[in-house]
């Protein structure tokens, strides 16, 4: 019950928990091919979600046309996707027990979280925390 109310407190907590469990599971299976498939699929799904959010942000009426603000819409998602790929590479290229492999798993989970976390709006940053 405590867990449920904790998850309800912020909308992203559910997805974050899901991701962590998914990656833990993937790590335990130890099957590289499966890992690669699921990993790539997860990246694709998150990418589509991120793309939609970015498009919506670009179309929002109060957006600024300054380059920094546009870059700020696209860059975090693009980086997270790129880093997801790096993480998968680390996972696939290294034997299951190695440090690099574990580093890849942690990084993969982290980058997926980055993909699903909605970006904090700087103008209202003081109001809505976390």
């Amino acid at each position, binding site marked *: 019950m405590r867990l449920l109310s904790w998850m309800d407190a912020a909308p992203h907590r559910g997805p974050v928990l899901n991701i962590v469990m998914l990656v833990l599971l993937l790590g335990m299976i130890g099957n590289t091919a499966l890992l690669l498939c699921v990993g790539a699929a997860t990246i694709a799904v998150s990418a589509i979600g991120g793309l939609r959010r970015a498009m919506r942000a670009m179309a929002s009426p109060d957006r*600024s046309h*300054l380059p*920094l603000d546009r*870059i*700020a819409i696209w*860059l*975090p998602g693009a*980086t*997270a996707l*790129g*880093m997801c790929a*790096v993480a998968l590479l*680390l996972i696939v290229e290294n034997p299951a027990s190695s*440090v*690099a492999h574990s*580093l890849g798993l942690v*990084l993969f989970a*982290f980058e997926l979280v*980055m993909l699903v*976390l909605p*970006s*904090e709006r*700087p103008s209202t*940053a*003081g109001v809505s*925390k*976390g």
Partner: protein
Amino acid sequence: MDFPVFHLDVLGNRGLIAGIAVLHVLINHGLAVGLMPLVACMEWYGHRKRDARWDALAYRILFCAFIVTTTAGALTGVGIWLSVSLVNPYSIGSLLRVFFWAWFVEWLVFITEVCLILAYTLTWKTWREGAAKRRHIRLGFALGLFSWITMAIIVSILGFMMDPGNWLADNTLFSGFTNPVYLPQLAFRTPLAATMAGVIALVLVPFFVGRDDPFRREAIRAVAVWTLLFCPFIVAGGYWYYGAVPEAMKDNLAVSVLTLQFSGWLDEFLLLVVGTAIAIVVVVQVAIVRPGLVPRTALVLPLLAILWLTAHFERVREFIRKPYVIGRYMYANGLRVDDYALLRRDGLLAYATYSNPLTPAEQASVPAALPPAERAAALDRLQKGKDVFMNACSRCHTTHGVNGVADHLHRMFGNRVWTPDLTGDYLANMHNAQPYMPPFPGSQAELGFLSTYLEQLQANREPVPGAQQAGITVRPESGSKLAVGERR
């Protein structure tokens, strides 16, 4: 060999140059080349948004950079060339001959850069409104451009030292300047400088904007975006650069990042490098998505990480060039590849003008009980051995300090007496055993003198002062032989 040999017997000459050069690169890339455009962008952004907070922040960051670049930055910049010309005047001589006009232009560009940074900083408070402000912003971008050009010229010289390319055949400034490593290295260093500047600004922002000021989050987020923007270009540039490094040099990579003893750890080291790079990206990512969440100390982490990475990168770049100081043209001992045949025939000492007198500890290694004539002959051999060592080995080795030969010999031969018979064979083939060492440059007799000198290092642990402390004597035989084309 027309210059006395400057030598630091504990730190090593390489240590001196590396220390100054790494410091300079960090200041130049981080605080000048990368930071000036960032500051100009901040000023411009604030101007467009009519938000004076950006202006105030940009000015404060600029002021820090101004103080450091015009003092430590300028000093270490001159310091590099001073230390390099002390340690290896021959390589600087060659570079000056090839890049004379490039250096001349560099001087003009540098003076312009200094004037621009003075003007940019000093007019900030007066050129505030309308057209004056726009002019001031343009000044900032011009400053960024000139900082970049100073780097772009010097990078060509660094590339040339790695691989002179077609210059070896046609000896023109143009082909030297456009050496194969030039553009890849520039493509790598440019985004590296921008990222480094972002990382430095991330550390500075919390000093100038209070914790409770909502602007702090906005500024951190913006600077983090700048930082992240250039990261992919570092990777792309780095990949291109790595491809341009001559194959033979890549074989040195393992020894270069660590030392001989640890060269088996290359994989672990590379993992550490990858992990460090990832750590930088991760912190910056969080700084974008949740700028309020990153504590100040976490912002220092990317700075330390990038300093560590850059310092290692420079060290490796300097090292893998070995055995050359200028690729395929001049060895790190300052001797030209083409002169080797001559030196082997006539002996190295035939062309050495100066001698580094024996220290009392070295003289003591020759038994005092010997008949005077025999003792004098032994001392003479030792003196010659020392001069060979100073000319052929001391630019890379100390005796007992950093990369000391005595330590190497001890590792190889242990406590056996290091007689010339034992060490001579190795020395004759040292360039085959360790490809980052040049071949022995002198005659067969000189190899014997050198071995004699090395032998006494086993018992004598006294440091060997360079010409700057011990002074010099002019070799009596000097001047008997002149290199081809040389006249007195």
